[in-house]
């Protein structure tokens, strides 16, 4: 009980909540590790951007939300979907391109949508979804609803015009949106120092009089704290915020890219891995007596089982039927347009 009080003082969390956060980080880690293996086995195709190393950001941020709040992400979003409440089996099935996937196999790794859980994609033009999130927040305010919108993107996205246009409108119109910049230091292979005239991403919020905070993105409690304040501001006063979460991706930009090489050294990656956010949070909870190594192993077995089941589900699911090719182009039946197109 004393330990729990300490935790509560630290972050206002019950022990169950704290353990759930650890579990979700672990689940996200195991999911991505297995996705990497499935990619290597060519069960997953196309681009596959893994989240390993950044788990504290999605888990900490989304832990502050109500179930009907909205989340919009970039293309590195598998773990955001897991944490927002999507069924891991249907996420994996989407990665496999199967009919049972969240988007019926037609979105893929970069386009996960799960409307009933408030997940509005999965968008793959860098920064292009930032206006969308702003529009969802506009709708929330228009409809006088109490929801909040979280918008996740990488640090490379803050150089695109859509970011600036969005922050300006969100501030001008007082919209309930929290922009979360996951600063993992590299836009693909270009270090932030080589792409941005300003090192501190959070400073960019000043230009639009938007509240901002820089937070250690490898510390899930710190992320939760900062995003929690921003979410409260959005919900209470309909004001936007920009949170810069400084994190690190342990993998390459996508599965087809090297972990290190021309743009960063192996030594740098190894040093960063010493700050592993999952291990770090386990150590915090362990020091509080909330979990021990045995407890971690049990938790890990549970996470691995969920991931294994998701792989089994995905692998045994059918491919989309040929007729799906022309479905959902429009709200009404459509296609094929020419005689020489496939006629499913």
């Amino acid at each position, binding site marked *: 009980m004393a330990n729990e009080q300490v935790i509560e003082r630290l972050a206002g969390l019950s022990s169950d909540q704290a353990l759930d956060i650890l579990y979700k980080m672990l689940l996200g880690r195991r999911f991505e590790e297995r996705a990497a293996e499935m990619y290597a086995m060519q069960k997953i195709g196309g681009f596959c951007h893994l989240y390993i190393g950044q788990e504290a950001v999605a888990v900490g941020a989304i832990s502050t939300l109500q179930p009907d709040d*909205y989340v919009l992400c970039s293309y590195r979003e598998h773990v955001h979907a897991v944490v927002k409440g999507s069924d891991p089996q249907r996420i994996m099935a989407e990665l496999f391109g199967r009919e049972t*996937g*969240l*988007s*019926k*196999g*037609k*979105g893929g790794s970069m*386009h996960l*949508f*799960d*409307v009933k859980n408030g997940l*509005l*994609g*999965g*968008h793959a*033009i860098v920064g*292009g*979804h*930032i*206006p*969308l*999130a*702003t*529009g*969802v*927040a*506009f*709708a*929330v305010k*228009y*409809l006088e609803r109490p929801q909040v919108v979280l918008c996740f993107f990488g640090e490379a996205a803050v150089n695109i*015009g*859509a970011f600036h*246009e*969005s922050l*300006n*409108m969100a501030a*001008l*119109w007082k919209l309930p949106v929290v922009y979360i910049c996951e600063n993992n230091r590299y836009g693909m292979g270009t270090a932030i120092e080589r792409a941005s005239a300003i090192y501190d991403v959070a400073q960019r919020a000043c230009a639009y009089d938007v509240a901002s905070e820089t937070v250690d993105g490898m510390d899930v409690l710190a992320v939760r704290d900062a995003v929690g304040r921003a979410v409260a501001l959005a919900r209470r006063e309909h004001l936007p915020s920009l949170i810069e979460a400084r994190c690190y991706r342990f993998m390459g930009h996508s599965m087809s890219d090297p972990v290190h090489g021309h743009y960063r050294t192996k030594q740098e990656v190894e040093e960063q891995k010493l700050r592993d956010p999952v291990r770090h949070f386990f150590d915090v909870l362990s020091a509080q007596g909330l979990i021990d190594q045995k407890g971690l192993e049990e938790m890990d077995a549970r996470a691995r089982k969920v991931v294994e089941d998701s792989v089994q589900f995905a692998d045994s699911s059918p491919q989309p039927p040929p007729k799906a090719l022309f*479905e*959902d*182009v*429009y*709200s*009404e039946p*459509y*296609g094929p347009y*020419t*005689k020489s197109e496939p006629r499913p």
Partner: protein
Amino acid sequence: MPLITYRDALNQALREEMRRDPRVFLMGEEVGIYQGAYKVSRGLMQEFGERRVIDTPITEEGFTGVGVGAAMVGLRPVIEMMTWNFSLVAIDQIVSGAAKMLYMSGGQVKIPMVIRGPGGAAHQLGAQHSQSLEAWYSHVPGLKVAMAATPYDAKGLLKSAIRDDDPVMFIEGETLYGSKGEVPEEEYLVPLGVADVKRPGTDVTLFAWSKMVKVALDAAEQLAGDDVSCEVVDLRTLRPLDRQAILDSVRRTNRCVVVEEGWPYSGVGAELADLIQREAFDDLDAPVERVTGADVPMPYAKNLEHLAMPGPERVIEAVRRVAYLD
């Protein structure tokens, strides 16, 4: 039947649909306080307030994306482009966002949204303000493209577009805003995807849309004096295309000319020519002719601009070619 302008017909459509459905809102540059750059939104802020008639910064990509985002969760935005020329800085939101959301989400996320504003050349506005971009947007599966030639069609089509569950690019004619036509007082809709025969004829079909309908009608009138009977088919919607109406007309007349303001290369007329040669090859007595804007950036000088634009003279020449009259 009251005679009103194309501008007022659009205004009536917006007003009626906003009264009918509280989820409909209008957003764009100068739509509110200023009453619209072309006065299409005149009086709407007075009636519906700043909540539903929203002036934006000059931020086309941003506010187009806001429209798509709002549509994702059930609102029905009408986004005004001051002109479609400015949509080029918003095209990612339209093509990567609005057009693909339903498909990428496996049918979960509809985009019931209209983007509207004037397109095409006006008078000496120069290269960057005189573009007909309908071919660009018609190219994209997931988008619909509507272009009205008359006040009647403008009102009925816009109302249908606002009620449609898919993103509709509604491209108005910049020089049509002041044109007048009969518009009934009672409510009506013009469905998307249905062409309209604006003038029946027997010898040659002229396919046109937006302000080229007037050019085609003028040409048809002059040709009637030479005993050439032209049918003028107004496509009204470029996507979905009323293929049946196109083929029906060609099968009646066996000859056709497509009149298009835009550039010839990969233009909408090329699509029509392709459709007609594949589906009605045996009905054709002459190759499909196209009259288009000149394949150049629009010049400023009045005489050069006039040369670049399709006019009745060039249409008449094309008709005479397909009818083998020269």
